[in-house]
């Protein structure tokens, strides 16, 4: 394996991992945009999507149908979380809303453990997605699910870009994110916009959860925690609340993690997460508003 092949291999890995982080971070940013709420339950919506697919595909439902149902289940979960947990306290102080979103996380995860136990179960990926592909005589390998992750992320983010720049609802969502009371004042139905934001963000979480589980090969009720934490970091790097920022932050974080492991000696790279968070802290000291919003302070 040549040096160049090795680097190319790491780039493929970085784009694949970055895509997952970007998908999750984008959803966090959509919800934060309209509600100014850090939605910790976002990771659990991922879990709902992945479990939906695992259960349906395990029961013999064709995989593509199971995926669509899983994404729909995640969207419904997001809708219910908004309706039951967040709407009643929409005007409450930030701390109360933050704690509520943490509470929702614990409730969903513990219900998941009660029903499915906390031991991982197999994620039934069709063989065609498990195939490995080799390029330049086996120097670079990637699986179909890597490719699918990159392709689906690309397509779904294009769709999101179209939605928020070309549709009236998307424009309304951006307007509400910018200034909620001015949004009321131009007669926007803010309630409907918040519901749409949750459906869209949760559908993206569902897709991300399915892809995450497909790469890991297993599902587990607490599987949402790690990607949520990583996506949170990605969103902050990019500028919290900015959808483009979440996207950029996701790929930066993916690349950072892969390259730390790939190019640093293992005595250092085993501290990967510590290094990532150290970089985050250093970065925030220089640009407190994130990459795309240099002038804005982050308020959680």
């Amino acid at each position, binding site marked *: 394996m040549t040096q160049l092949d090795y680097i190319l291999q790491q780039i493929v890995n970085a784009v694949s991992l970055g895509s997952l982080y970007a998908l999750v971070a984008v959803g966090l940013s959509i919800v934060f945009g309209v509600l100014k709420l850090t939605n910790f339950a976002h990771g659990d919506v991922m879990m709902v999507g992945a479990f939906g697919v695992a259960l349906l595909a395990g029961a013999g439902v064709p995989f593509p149908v199971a995926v669509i149902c899983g994404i729909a289940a995640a969207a419904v979960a997001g809708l219910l979380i908004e309706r039951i947990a967040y709407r009643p306290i929409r005007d409450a102080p930030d701390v109360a809303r933050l704690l509520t979103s943490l509470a929702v996380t614990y409730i969903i995860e513990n219900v998941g453990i009660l029903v499915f136990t906390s031991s991982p179960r197999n994620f039934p990926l069709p063989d065609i997605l498990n195939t490995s592909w080799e390029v330049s005589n086996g120097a670079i390998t990637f699986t179909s699910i890597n490719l699918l992750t990159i392709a689906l992320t690309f397509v779904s983010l294009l769709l999101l870009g179209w939605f928020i720049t070309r549709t*009236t609802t998307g424009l309304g969502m951006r307007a509400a994110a910018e200034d909620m009371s*001015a949004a009321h004042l131009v007669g926007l139905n803010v309630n409907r916009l918040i519901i749409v934001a949750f459906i869209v963000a949760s559908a993206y979480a569902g897709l991300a959860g399915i892809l995450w589980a497909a790469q890991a090969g297993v599902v587990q009720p607490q599987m949402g925690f790690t990607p949520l934490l990583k996506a949170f970091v990605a969103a902050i790097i990019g500028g919290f609340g900015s959808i483009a920022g979440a996207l950029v932050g996701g790929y930066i974080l993916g690349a950072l993690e892969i390259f730390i492991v790939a190019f640093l000696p293992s005595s250092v790279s085993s501290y990967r997460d510590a290094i990532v968070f150290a970089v985050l802290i250093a970065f925030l000291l220089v640009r407190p508003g994130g990459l795309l919003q240099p002038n804005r302070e982050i308020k959680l």
Partner: protein
Amino acid sequence: MRTVGLTKAFRGLVALRDHSIELHEGEIVGVIGPNGSGKSTLFNLITGFSQPNSGSIEMEGRSIVGLRTSQIVAMGIARTFQGSRLFGSLSVAQNVLTAAQLRHPVGSADTVLRGRRYRERVAATRQKADELLDLMGLTGQAGRVAADLPYGDQRRLEIARALATGPRLLLLDEPAAGLDSNETKVLAALIRTIRDRYGVTVVVVEHDMDLIMALCERIQVLATGEVICVGTPEQVREHPKVREAYLGHA
């Protein structure tokens, strides 16, 4: 529109006491008064941003107290804010389009299906936005990000956005703040044009006496939350209580 006996207190501090006014269709009314005299409180009550402790607000015979802001806007009341409250990251045209869709709503299904109704409504929204940008002299700036506009343009854009909701009553909160005397003159002519073209009733809250005197047909003066006089610009200018409120002595 009219208010009767409108009172609002914040923790015992009375911001507006027993306020009444009746507006006639198509007139331009000024509300003036020193800082803290209750002008902005009045606008906040009318547009549902806060609720009165007592009194009534009626729009064409229907009470609007307790309605949500978006419902009040849908009934035909629009306002601008003191200082700019534009959607800064949206383009100039998008700011107006966002408001114009109120009168030409498209649902989610329409957006996906893109049928004839969708195309007609989107076309109507765009036409309305184009017309207002043209009126405000902002056509050349349509594609720019709103936050990048010069201050005077931002103020006019905010009026365009308010007009896009199709109001019959337009509330302008210090529209001349930060404008020089030339820009203020242009603004006064513009407000008159808006009234003439759309038949909209206009209420202007303002510190700038020049604008108020030049523009308004009727003026109400507030001081420490109470109405101290109502009249034509000439009557108000000569009123002893007004001189006292503004100059601190009779």
